[in-house]
Structures are given as structure tokens and as C-alpha cells.
């Protein structure tokens, strides 16, 4: 009777946005008279960080500090249509929409600034700190606040923009399944180390090492949030969670968190994450969505690590101690596989 160490790997990709497209999102951006911007959306922040991601994308596009942008969501009277927060689509779809809107607003802002500075708008640039200046002659500059005041009270211009992003709906061929499922894909490789107790069938995840390619990290701290939380959920799906423990027999379903199992704070493990960025040609600043793909590779990597540890394959989720123990028994005992070189 012993504990066996095992290591497993999985590599995956993940399509961003609703499959086949056809899922538009809109955004509105406008400045108040003193040069502070509001983004109006109907998109939902359910914890993934929609408000903050959109805020950074908008600020970058406008060329103003992030503190000068506020994201207001979600009110159906003021926020334009968004298909919803799912399918890893928020950053990609809404991010693109807000870029379009912010570019339109920026163009008006630059025009208004040009009028004040009596130069061509094409000769102007933003410094990202709230100033607009003449390229090559930074002493000739004006603040965004002054521009907004002039636009509103002197020039009668609206510093505002509308944006929509739509990946047109793809067809699906009934015979071959030919289709355009997605325009951009995120990638991941996860290596999981586990320990399997051949006496109890218990599996502990010791360590996760992962590489995620996400196009562009809009905000590294929020990327970390998603990847850490998502990997936890992947581990939870692999080893713990089910609403029908005897599926397809529907009986004995859990009713509360005492009966529905998930790893607690004492069951987590160190997770080393490396992020790669290969910008998506159609992503906002190259960004891809990461909300869903982060959980997926962990499930098979855990299963493969268990095989590596004790030589049994569990093909049915979740991989409960009972299943592991039965499989070890059926195999006549644990059969550790070669260590991964």
C-alpha cells in the first residue's frame, strides 16, 4: 500500500466567441464637458472583469488615462445591445466594439483640439496623460479637459462614438460540417503532478504547470485571476463535481454544498503559469478570451497523471476515489508507469 506520484499533460485550443459568429455587441462612448469619458454597455460583469477590461481598451484607444474612463453597465435603457457574457466573447467582441466607438470619439476630440490649436488633426497625438500635442512640437499642447470644454461650449461638437462588432454568421454544411466556427483561438498546455493513494483511491493534485497563449493580456492581474480560478474549476470537475453521482441513474443528487463537492482552500496546489501572447489578427490589441479555456486542459491532464501514477484509466468523470480504487483492484494492484522521462 503506497502513494504513487504521477504526471500528466494535455494541450488544447479554444474558439473565442459564439460558435459560427452572428453574436454582435455594441458600445457607446462619450465625454462629459470636462473630458471624462463614459462607456455605456449592456454587457454583464459576472466576475470575469468585463468592466475593467473594457475600461483599459477604451482608455488605450482614446489615448487618455484609465482613470478618465468609467464603464457603465448594464441597463437596457442606456446600454446598446450585447449578445451576452458567455462563450469567452466579452473581451473579444465587446472589446472590438468599444475600440470602434472610442476611435470615433477620438476623431472628434482630435478635430476639436486641432481647431483650438489651429493645426491639422493629422498632426496631433495624445500623450496618454490627458494632453493632446502637436507631433514633434510637444510644447504646443492642450489638455483633453480644455478640448472637451471647447467642443461642448464653443464648437458645438459631441465627443462621442458608436461601435459594433459582428462576426457574420457562418453556414454549416449538413453533409460535411464545413463551417467557420471561430475567427480566433487561444491555446494551452497544462502539466499536472498528482499523488494517488492505492489504498483509498484518493487523488491529490500536487502541482500544476501551465502555459497559456492568450493573444494579449489586457491586464495581467486579471489574466491571473481567470487562469488560477479556472484551473481550480478544472481540477474540481476532474475529481469532485457531479449533480448525478450515479449518472445516468438520476438518484441521490446533491442539494447543497455539503453534498456537492468541490476542492476547498486546503485542497489547492501551487500553480506555475506562463503566459504567451500571439496577437489575434481580429482581437482588440490582439486579445483573445480566456474565461473558458483555462479549465479545460486540467481535466484530461489529471486523468492522464492518474494513469501515470497507478496505471489505470478512468474515462468517466468525476474521478472519485471509488472509481480509482475499483480500477486499481480490477488491475490487480497499482502499476506505476514510467516516469515522464
Amino acid at each position, binding site marked *: 500500500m503506497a502513494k504513487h506520484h504521477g504526471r500528466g499533460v494535455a494541450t488544447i485550443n479554444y474558439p473565442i466567441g459564439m460558435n459560427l459568429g452572428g453574436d454582435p455587441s455594441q458600445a457607446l462612448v462619450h465625454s462629459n464637458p470636462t473630458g471624462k469619458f463614459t462607456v455605456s454597455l449592456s454587457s454583464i460583469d459576472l466576475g470575469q472583469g468585463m468592466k475593467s477590461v473594457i475600461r483599459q481598451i477604451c482608455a488605450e484607444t482614446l489615448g487618455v488615462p484609465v482613470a478618465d474612463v468609467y464603464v457603465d453597465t448594464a441597463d437596457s435603457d442606456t446600454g446598446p445591445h450585447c449578445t451576452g457574457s458567455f462563450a469567452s466573447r466579452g473581451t473579444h467582441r465587446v472589446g472590438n466594439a468599444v475600440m470602434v466607438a472610442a476611435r470615433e470619439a477620438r476623431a472628434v476630440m482630435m478635430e476639436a483640439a486641432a481647431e483650438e490649436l489651429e493645426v491639422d488633426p493629422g498632426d496631433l497625438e495624445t500623450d496618454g496623460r490627458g494632453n493632446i500635442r502637436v507631433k514633434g512640437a510637444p510644447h504646443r499642447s492642450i489638455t483633453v479637459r480644455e478640448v472637451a470644454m471647447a467642443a461642448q461650449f464653443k464648437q458645438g461638437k459631441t465627443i462621442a462614438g458608436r461601435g459594433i462588432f459582428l462576426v457574420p454568421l457562418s453556414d454549416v454544411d449538413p453533409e460535411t460540417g464545413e463551417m467557420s466556427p471561430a475567427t480566433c483561438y487561444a491555446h494551452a498546455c497544462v502539466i499536472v503532478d498528482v499523488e494517488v493513494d492505492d489504498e483509498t483511491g484518493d487523488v491529490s493534485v500536487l502541482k500544476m504547470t501551465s502555459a497559456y497563449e492568450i493573444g494579449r493580456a489586457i491586464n495581467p492581474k486579471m489574466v491571473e485571476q481567470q487562469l*488560477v*480560478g479556472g*484551473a481550480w474549476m478544472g481540477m474540481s470537475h476532474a475529481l469532485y463535481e457531479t449533480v448525478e453521482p450515479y449518472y445516468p441513474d438520476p438518484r441521490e443528487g446533491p442539494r447543497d454544498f455539503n453534498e456537492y463537492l468541490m476542492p*476547498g*482552500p486546503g485542497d489547492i496546489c501551487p500553480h506555475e503559469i506562463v503566459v504567451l501572447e500571439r496577437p489575434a489578427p481580429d482581437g482588440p490589441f490582439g486579445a483573445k478570451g480566456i474565461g473558458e479555456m483555462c479549465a479545460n486542459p486540467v481535466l484530461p491532464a489529471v486523468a492522464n497523471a492518474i494513469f501515470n501514477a497507478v496505471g489505470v484509466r478512468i474515462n468517466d468523470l468525476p474521478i472519485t476515489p471509488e472509481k480509482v480504487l475499483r480500477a486499481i483492484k480490477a488491475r490487480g494492484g497499482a502499476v506505476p508507469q514510467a516516469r515522464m522521462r
Partner: protein
Amino acid sequence: MKTPIQFRLNGEDVAAFVEGGANLLDTLREIVGDLSVKGGCWQGTCGTCTVLIDGVPRLSCITLAETCSGSSIETAAGLRRGSELHPLQIAFMERFAAQCGYCTPGMLMAAKALLDKNPNPTRQDVIEAISGNICRCTGYEPIINAVLDAAREHARSRA
């Protein structure tokens, strides 16, 4: 028949009339108006509704309001002093220890109970202190780190 109860909430005196079976969670939210306490299961299994009653973390959803008469209750609404955030709140921010934020009030209170009692907790102490609180978003790691940071900060500020 309603029963009058009185308790201290975040240092203020509060009085309310409650139904016989009323729980503390509903009393705080619906009668007293403290919306900082959240409910996630209303059956004592998620920790979201954690408050401190006389310094001890309790699940307000399964605590009869009547039994709280005369106690001192702390909720997340009472954590900051004016505009000054509690070290736990600062640490949660710096560690990005909230995503949807729904578990956060309960987590903060469970962590506060720990730090009030044990200002130098180990990682294991923190894990035990928050093990009754479910978080579906973060994977717990940032929360554990935030509580440890807050403890360190607390120790430093008193040194």
C-alpha cells in the same frame, strides 16, 4: 406575533421587531437594511452570510435573530473606519482576491475573526479559518495570500 430585539451592529445600537422564526441574515438585510451581508444558500452550507457575533464567526442564515438580542454583531459594512479601509480590505484589493465579489463579505468576516484572535496566522490557520466559505471564482489562492498579507501588515503597523 413579533418579538422586539436589540443588538449592537458595527458599534451602533439597533432595535427591530422580528417574526418568531426569522433568521439573522434576513433581519439584517430586510429589516435593518444592512445589505453588506449576502445569502448564498440560506441553509448553512456556503459561508457567504458569515458575520461575527461577539467576535465569533457565525452563519447568519441559520442563526435565529431572537438569540442575538444583547449581542454585538459585526458585518463587512463595519470594516472600514470612515474612508479608511481595513488592512484586510486593502490586502484583498492588492491581491485581486475577488472576482464576482459575492463571497467577499463573508470571506472578510471569517478572516477578521481569525486575525482578531490570532494576529500571526500560518497558511494552515488561514485555510482552516476560511474553509467554511465557498468561493467559486478565485481558486482560493489569492484569498489565502491576502489574509496572510493583512496579518503581516497588521503586525508591522503595530510594531
